[in-house]
Structure formats: C-alpha cells, structure tokens
C-alpha cells in the first residue's frame, strides 16, 4: 500500500515537476497521434461522404468492411504493417520500421475505420434536404459538401474525438511498428508497458494519469459537442 502511495506521489512530482523525460514521451505521443488523425481525417470524411451519398456497386460491402474493421485489434494492425514494412516485406525498401512514420501509418489504419463508420453514420443521418437545398440555392458540389459537413459537424467532431482517443492510447501497433525507442518512438502507452515490466510504477502512473486526464477531457468535449447538436427540421 505504501509503495503505491509512494509511486503515486513520485508520479505527481514527475508530472508537475516538469520531468523532461516524461514530457518528451508525452510530446512524442501527441505529435504522432495528431499527425495520424490529421492525415486520416480528410480521407475518412471523403470516404464517409461517398458511402453516405454515393450510389455505386459494392457500397454496402464497403460499409460492412469498415464496420468490421472497427473491432480490428491494434496488435493485428501492428502485425500486418510489421510484415509489410519489415526488411523482407513488400514495403521493406521504404525502411520505415521502428520509425515515427511507421507508427503514424499504423495509427492511421486504426483511426480510419472509426472516422469512416462514425462519419458515415453522421452524414447519413443528416437531412437529405440539406444537400438539395444547397444545390438549388446555387452551391456547386464542393460547397454543398462543405455545407453538409457543417450541418453534420457535431457528429463529425465526435468521430474525430473518438478516433483520436483510440490511437493515443493504443499500445499494440505502436510497440510493434515503433519499437519503443527512447527519445524517438517511445510514446505514452509503450512507456507504461515498459516501466510496468521493470517494476517501476512512478512514470507509468504519471503517464497513465495523462491518458486518464485526456480521456476525461475528450469525453467532456464529446458531451459538450453532442449537447450542442440540435436537429433542425
């Protein structure tokens, strides 16, 4: 009991004392995950829009595929890209394994299904008259699409927050693709796993608190955003 309270105290000291090693890990985590979400979002919104408003063969199959990928374990995503990026793999020449870009690729693959599935459902639930009204008021396809995204913004933002929440806390893909290299690819979840395996809990608890605080913040934001979403007839 004493050691838990000691570790927690140490964790708080590390966190609020501005420990450079700890904050570097937090920085890497946010840099990688924010880059991944920034790259995945435009693609995902485009796909979601196509699935919600496009009519093409295989559309339903694609929706089912993205919904299935929602439950794809992070470690399997890590394994898939590990095989692709490893020296003998088809993308081995890129020499990306154990780099931040590899972690970003893995996190994009994890975030994309969430962004697409939630984005699709949000766009699909938007009144179809919104699109028709934009078009009949003289908006081109692109402006109409942006209008629709504005109408569905609360749902799309919820998708964004959920996607970010998933990738910032995932350990499997980051560990396998990043290699947990200090000062380079060690992020919050991989550092927690490492510190715990060494029996040193202080840093793990400190990083866990960061993840917890972030989860709280994201959920708070989500509540705020969903509370503001008002259906307009």
């Amino acid at each position, binding site marked *: 009991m004493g050691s838990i309270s000691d570790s927690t105290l140490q964790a708080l000291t590390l966190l609020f004392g501005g420990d450079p090693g700890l904050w570097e890990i937090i920085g890497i985590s946010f840099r990688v995950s924010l880059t991944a979400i920034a790259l995945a979002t435009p693609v995902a919104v485009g796909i979601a829009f196509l699935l919600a408003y496009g009519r093409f063969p295989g559309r339903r199959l694609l929706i089912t595929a993205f919904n299935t990928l929602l439950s794809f374990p992070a470690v399997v995503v890590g394994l898939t890209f590990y095989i692709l990026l490893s020296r003998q793999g088809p993308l081995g020449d890129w020499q990306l394994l154990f780099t931040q870009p590899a972690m970003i690729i893995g996190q994009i693959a994890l975030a994309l299904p969430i962004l697409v599935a939630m984005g699709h459902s949000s766009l699909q639930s938007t009144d179809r008259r919104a699109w028709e009204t934009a078009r009949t008021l003289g908006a081109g396809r692109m402006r109409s699409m942006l209008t629709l995204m504005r109408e569905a913004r609360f749902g799309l933002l919820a998708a964004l927050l959920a996607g970010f929440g998933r990738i910032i806390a995932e350990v499997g893909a980051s560990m396998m693709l990043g290699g947990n290299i200090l000062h380079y690819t060690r992020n919050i979840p991989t550092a927690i796993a490492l510190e715990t395996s060494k029996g040193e809990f202080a840093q793990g608890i400190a990083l866990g608190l960061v993840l917890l605080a972030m989860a709280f913040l994201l959920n708070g934001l989500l509540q705020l955003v969903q509370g503001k979403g*008002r259906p307009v007839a």
Partner: protein
Amino acid sequence: MNQLLCRNIHKKFGRRRILEDVDISLTAGECLLLCGRNGAGKSTLLRILAGMERPDQADVTIDGTVRRWRQAKKRLLAECIYLHQQPYLFEGSVRYNLNYPLSGTRVAREARIREGLDWSGLADLAEQPVHQLSGGERQRVALVRAWLRGPRVMLLDEPTANMDVACRQRTVDLLRTLKGQGMALLIATHDPESFSGVSERTMVLHDGCLKDADLGLTELPEKVTPIGRRVRGTA
C-alpha cells in the same frame, strides 16, 4: 430566360409509373398551379424541372434551345429553384440563411439581405436562430432566401401548407410580387383557392398525365426538335 418547356417527361419509381409523357411550359411572369392527389407525382415533376430528380426521359427547351434533360440539368439548377414543402433551413441565424445564396462583397450582400428582410417583413428576426422560428416564418425565410438567389423560375411545393390565414395571405402577397417581377411560378398545392388571385392556370396531375383543369389533356402542336426526334411543340 423567358420560357422553359419540358416535354415527354417520363418517370417510374420501380414498377410504379409516376409521370407518362408529360409536357409543361412556363413563361416569365406566369403562375401555374399544379394539383393532384397525394402521390400523383407533383413533387417529382417539380424536382425534375428544378434539375434535382433525374427523369427516365425528358427534353428541355430553354429559350428555344432543345436539350436532353441531362444536358440541361446545369442550366435548370441555375435558372430554377425548388422549395420543399417543409423547407430546410441551415443551422444558424436567419441572416446566415439569407446570406447563403449571395455572392459579392460583404457590403453588397448585407444590402441585399436587408432588402430581403424588409420585403418579407422579417427584419426583427434577422439574428434569430432558425430553430426558434414558427412554421410560417420558416416558410417565409425560405421564400426570401430563394428570392435572393434570383432565379427565373420558382417551383414551390405546398408553400402555404399548415399556415394560418394571415400567414398564408402574406405568402400569397409575396408570390404576387415575385410574379410581378417577371418570375415564373409553378405551385404544387391542394388548395388552389388560396392562389386564385395569383395564378392564371390550374393543371391537374392524374394517373401520370397532366391535364388542364378546364380544358382536359394538355395538347401542344407538333414540331421536329434539333435532336431529330418528333415531339409536340409549343404553341
């Protein structure tokens, strides 16, 4: 655009035939009423004319130039505006909605919005969020927004449905002004009496065919179109 003529309109939904060889003509400053029972195809016809619903077949003549509907779609979208029975207002204020179809400088847009608000008697509601408006106010906002876009043809789907007498009268007055400005109006309605002072003709859509309420089936003389297919021509 002075005249819009749409001929040989055919539309099926699945096996259900909605429109069969329908011809309709609209001239600037003219107001037509379109009646028919629920599901007769009034909204479908309006949406086809607005360039929003693809027909199985249709030829469109705008100011004498004949095109297939697909080629004319862009022009239809530019010249016509369609107002839903329950108009969709974008989330935000009345001002945001009125600003939507406008282009040009901020000052010019602001002047047009003020003009629209004064014209429709909605000046007090400019900053009001649209979800706080009554049904009648929403309908008027949609009408002003459509007017600000400056279309040549306005296609209105039950514009006075669920309105009280005063609100209906106000909307009819606005439509009369639009007609006076040279806009062509096609109004789908179950209540033709409300528009008796505005409209010249009443058409009835029945079993996929369009009939003049007074004369029976609409018959237009025949002519050969530039695309080489025989269609019934305009008078």
